[in-house]
């Protein structure tokens, strides 16, 4: 455990590893002698694809750029480096990818360190056991969670708290690469262990995990610095052109949270209702009064994704005002024609049954769907995205291609003769999107121990 010199100082490199930061900001942070460097590397924000497919949302090259600068800085200053939610979703393939990138950087830059990899992908038998014990509870709203959902899931991860990080550090790790993690746990564990009150530590962590996002109108992702002392913490963006104000720091608790005053973590709830924000100068803010209420039960949030099929789409557009004027009935007739043609082509072959055909109409209600309050079309042209999701890519492409042809020549009463009523954007008109996924769980699980779901692997690098 590190010793506090009256203060605890924390450097956050950026909001997501791979989104970038200024090297000058990282250097400015190092010059202030932080006790550790942390960085979040994941999110559900890009959607279920990353978790389902095992791929990363940010390009590997941009992840490597950020990780290299962080590793070099941490090793040069002999500081622990903590990375959470490796590779966007923190599953086994994501952690493996981060391990590869880290080893590659160490080789290229001649770095030596002891590394801990904290796994967060869950065994299906473990999840079923806890489910049968009644130790899996839905959050609101939540899809149904059963043995069948667990079996179908491509991947389910647990979101770890700070305990596995602290265990890895206790066991001598200098670089900790963690699977799916509470974003805040990356930053809260060490300050709490060094004696900072949990309320302040979790509140600062909530700000730090987003990098410079709490600064006023941050132009691009960057570093953030926090200093804890006695009964407060200060928040300070390292780029001299950035500034934090009491309002910008208070407003940060709104972002991507459903409740601006209460944030639920594994071990309790951060309560910001009594927090106060004071400007130290034009660009630094001092925060006091944040509280943390430990919960009776320790819980780990689960995230899972399942494959719902393979998708093919056709992008087209319509400029004919007569077709635009009857777009709803045009789509209803198209849908009927696609059904008839699919039945003809697939005949007794049942593999196409259960496919989903959907037409999105941009220029009408493509963005908000049934919630769109503007009902009349005010545009002179419409963009259509025809989308088929089916059991295989071949079936999806077949049906969307049938749909393209039906849409091209669908008659309307205003014109006599054979028409071509849709502009196709590409040749071939279809795009194969591959497997598509959905989030299949929004539940918490009660483990016996905060670390039982997160085995740690230790590697001596270099």
């Amino acid at each position, binding site marked *: 455990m590190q010793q506090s010199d009256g203060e605890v100082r924390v450097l956050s490199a950026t909001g997501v590893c791979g989104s970038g930061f200024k090297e000058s900001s990282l250097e400015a942070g190092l010059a202030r002698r932080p006790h550790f460097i942390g960085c979040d590397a994941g999110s559900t924000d890009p959607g279920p694809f990353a978790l389902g497919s095992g791929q990363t949302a940010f390009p590997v090259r941009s992840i490597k750029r950020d990780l290299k600068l962080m590793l070099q800085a941490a090793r040069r200053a002999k500081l622990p480096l903590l990375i959470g939610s490796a590779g966007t979703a923190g599953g086994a393939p994501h952690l493996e990818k981060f391990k590869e990138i880290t080893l590659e950087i160490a080789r290229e830059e001649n770095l030596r360190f002891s590394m801990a990899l904290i796994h967060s992908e869950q065994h299906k038998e473990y999840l079923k056991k806890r489910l049968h014990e009644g130790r899996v509870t839905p959050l609101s709203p939540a*899809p149904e969670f059963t043995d069948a959902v667990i079996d179908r899931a491509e991947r389910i991860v647990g979101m770890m708290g700070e305990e596995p990080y602290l265990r890895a550090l206790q066991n001598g790790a200098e670089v900790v690469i963690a699977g799916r993690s509470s974003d805040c746990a990356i930053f809260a564990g060490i300050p709490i262990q060094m004696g900072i009150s949990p309320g302040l530590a979790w509140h600062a962590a909530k700000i730090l995990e987003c990098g410079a996002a709490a600064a006023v109108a941050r132009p691009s992702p960057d570093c953030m610095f926090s200093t804890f002392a006695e009964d407060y913490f200060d928040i300070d963006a390292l780029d001299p052109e950035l500034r934090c104000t009491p309002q910008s720091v208070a407003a940060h608790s709104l972002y991507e949270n459903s409740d601006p005053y209460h944030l639920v973590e594994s071990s309790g709830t951060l309560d910001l209702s009594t927090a106060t924000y004071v400007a130290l100068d034009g660009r630094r803010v001092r925060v006091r009064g944040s509280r943390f209420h430990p919960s009776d039960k320790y819980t780990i949030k689960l995230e899972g994704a399942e494959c719902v099929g393979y998708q093919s789409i056709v992008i087209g557009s319509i400029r004919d005002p007569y077709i635009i004027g009857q777009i709803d009935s045009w789509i209803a007739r198209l849908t009927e024609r696609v059904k008839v043609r699919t039945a003809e082509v697939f005949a007794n072959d049942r593999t196409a049954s259960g496919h989903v055909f959907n037409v999105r109409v941009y220029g009408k209600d493509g963005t908000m769907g049934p919630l769109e309050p503007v009902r009349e079309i005010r545009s002179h042209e419409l963009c259509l995205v025809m989308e088929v999701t089916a059991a295989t890519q071949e079936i999806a492409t077949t049906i969307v291609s049938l749909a393209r042809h039906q849409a091209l020549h669908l008659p309307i009463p205003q014109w006599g003769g054979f028409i071509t009523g849709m502009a196709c954007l590409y040749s071939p008109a279809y795009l194969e999107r591959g497997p598509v996924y959905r989030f299949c769980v929004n539940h918490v699980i009660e483990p016996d121990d905060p670390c039982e779901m997160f085995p740690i692997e230790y590697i001596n690098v270099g």
Partner: protein
Amino acid sequence: MTKLGELARLIRSKNAGPFELTFDIMFDAKETFERVRDSKVLTAELIAQIYRLPVKDVRFFVVPEALAFKASIPRPRFQGDLLDSDTHGGQQYAPLIDIEIP
């Protein structure tokens, strides 16, 4: 009457996790924030009406220290589900712009 979009510094929507959608309405000046607050137009009931939900599904917050209002609702479709059309939930705020404030 003035439209909320003309009074606010920022109106935004975003996922709060894959299952909830959250709206932030933020102001620059305390007087403007107070004008909107005191008009009592912006309420959970209004959000429920715009997004066609029972009012019990709307969580509504007044956040004076950030000069902001916040509302959170269950996502109309879970993020990334087949018929979802806004992965980040970032473009669902538009109807709030036209709310008339006395």
